[in-house]
């Protein structure tokens, strides 16, 4: 791996410590830097994810999600940009299936990332990405699951020197395709970003981008 590519690691060889929102293919997609096969076909001997993803805000719908992805009329980066208004900062973003329909979700810290989670307003924007303009609904989190998850995301983004847009840019430099999920995570006690990319061949690739912390 060249020094230029050092910050970007194809994820396969990593077990993610304390992962909160990983997705089932992440281990499978890590076979090797040259791995390109469909995630489902990857060796079953790969270690299982440390944790089972929760139902919401995790792109665990696999093939069905990828089948609908071409219907999205905006890219993840555009959704992130649309969410980052009035001082808000995006913490994670992904396309996902909601009741069988394609949805775009962006978690935000409405007061930016200078304020900690306790003093921030943590929210999610979700909306139909097949419609233009994207008109997301906002939910300010009040429940334990989403508060703790968004707080985790915010803290990791605060530890990073990168914006989500930069993370996506770096991931695409390593693995061309369409990014459908970007989430902060922890690997070996270091903050990273999981970036999931759909390739033109219909494959799902997980790229880990070091956070620069």
């Amino acid at each position, binding site marked *: 791996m060249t020094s230029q590519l050092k910050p970007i690691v194809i994820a396969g060889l990593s077990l993610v*410590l*304390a*992962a*909160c929102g990983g997705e089932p293919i992440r281990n499978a997609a890590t076979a090797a830097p040259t791995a390109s096969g469909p995630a489902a076909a990857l060796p079953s001997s790969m270690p299982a994810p*440390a*944790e089972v993803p*929760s139902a919401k805000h995790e792109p665990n719908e696999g093939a069905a999600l990828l089948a609908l992805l071409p219907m999205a009329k905006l890219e993840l980066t555009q959704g992130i940009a649309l969410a980052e208004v009035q001082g808000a900062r995006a913490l994670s973003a992904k396309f996902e299936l909601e009741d069988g329909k394609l949805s775009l979700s962006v978690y935000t810290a409405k007061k930016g990332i200078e304020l*900690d*989670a*306790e003093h*921030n307003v*943590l929210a999610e924007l979700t909306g139909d990405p097949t419609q233009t303009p994207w008109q997301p609904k906002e939910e300010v989190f*009040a429940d*334990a*699951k989403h*508060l*703790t*998850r968004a*707080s*985790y995301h*915010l*803290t*990791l983004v*605060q*530890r*990073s*020197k990168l914006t989500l847009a930069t993370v996506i840019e770096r991931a695409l430099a390593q693995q061309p395709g369409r990014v459908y999920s970007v989430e902060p995570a*922890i690997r070996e*006690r*270091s*903050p990273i970003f999981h970036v999931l990319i759909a390739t033109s061949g219909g494959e799902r690739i997980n790229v880990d981008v070091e956070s620069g*912390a």
Partner: protein
Amino acid sequence: MTMPLRARLLPGLSLAAAVALIALGTHAEDSEAQLLALLARSKHGLPEALAAVRTAGGAPISAKLEFGDGKLWLSVYGASAGLDKCAEKNELFELKGDATADEWKPEREVFRDKEHLTRASAQLTLMQTTQLTLEAAISKGEALKKGIVYSAIPTLKDGKTAVTLRVRTPRGQTLSIVMDEKAK
């Protein structure tokens, strides 16, 4: 001659109200001052609280002596499932008990509210991204400043996880130290 109770209390209540308003602005400072005044009466230290969390199989994520309701308390935040589980899949709680009692008998509260959930989640995430333990940070801080650490809270320092320590020296000085994993 004695005044009726109500008449005697009213001026006092007005004064108390005014004092209360003024006190709102300086509550944090007052709490700190009262904490420091009572600190010598503590019969228990942070290491005991950290050990209590570890004995139960959890990971401590912050600890402090604090003043509240006229008492000195020893409090520790913990994650039941340790550092390998993120906040969402963990149980975040506090052990808190009277620090001046002969035996520290903390009550356990599992967090359900936004303030504590987000605070504890952030603290857990910070402790998950460092090799430094609270025990090591406290030990280093006490050795460095020759005092007693009465607060150890994970924080961000230049984009890295660190632990902010509050130390009371034998001369009565109060110091803050930000300890990261590279600190000697």
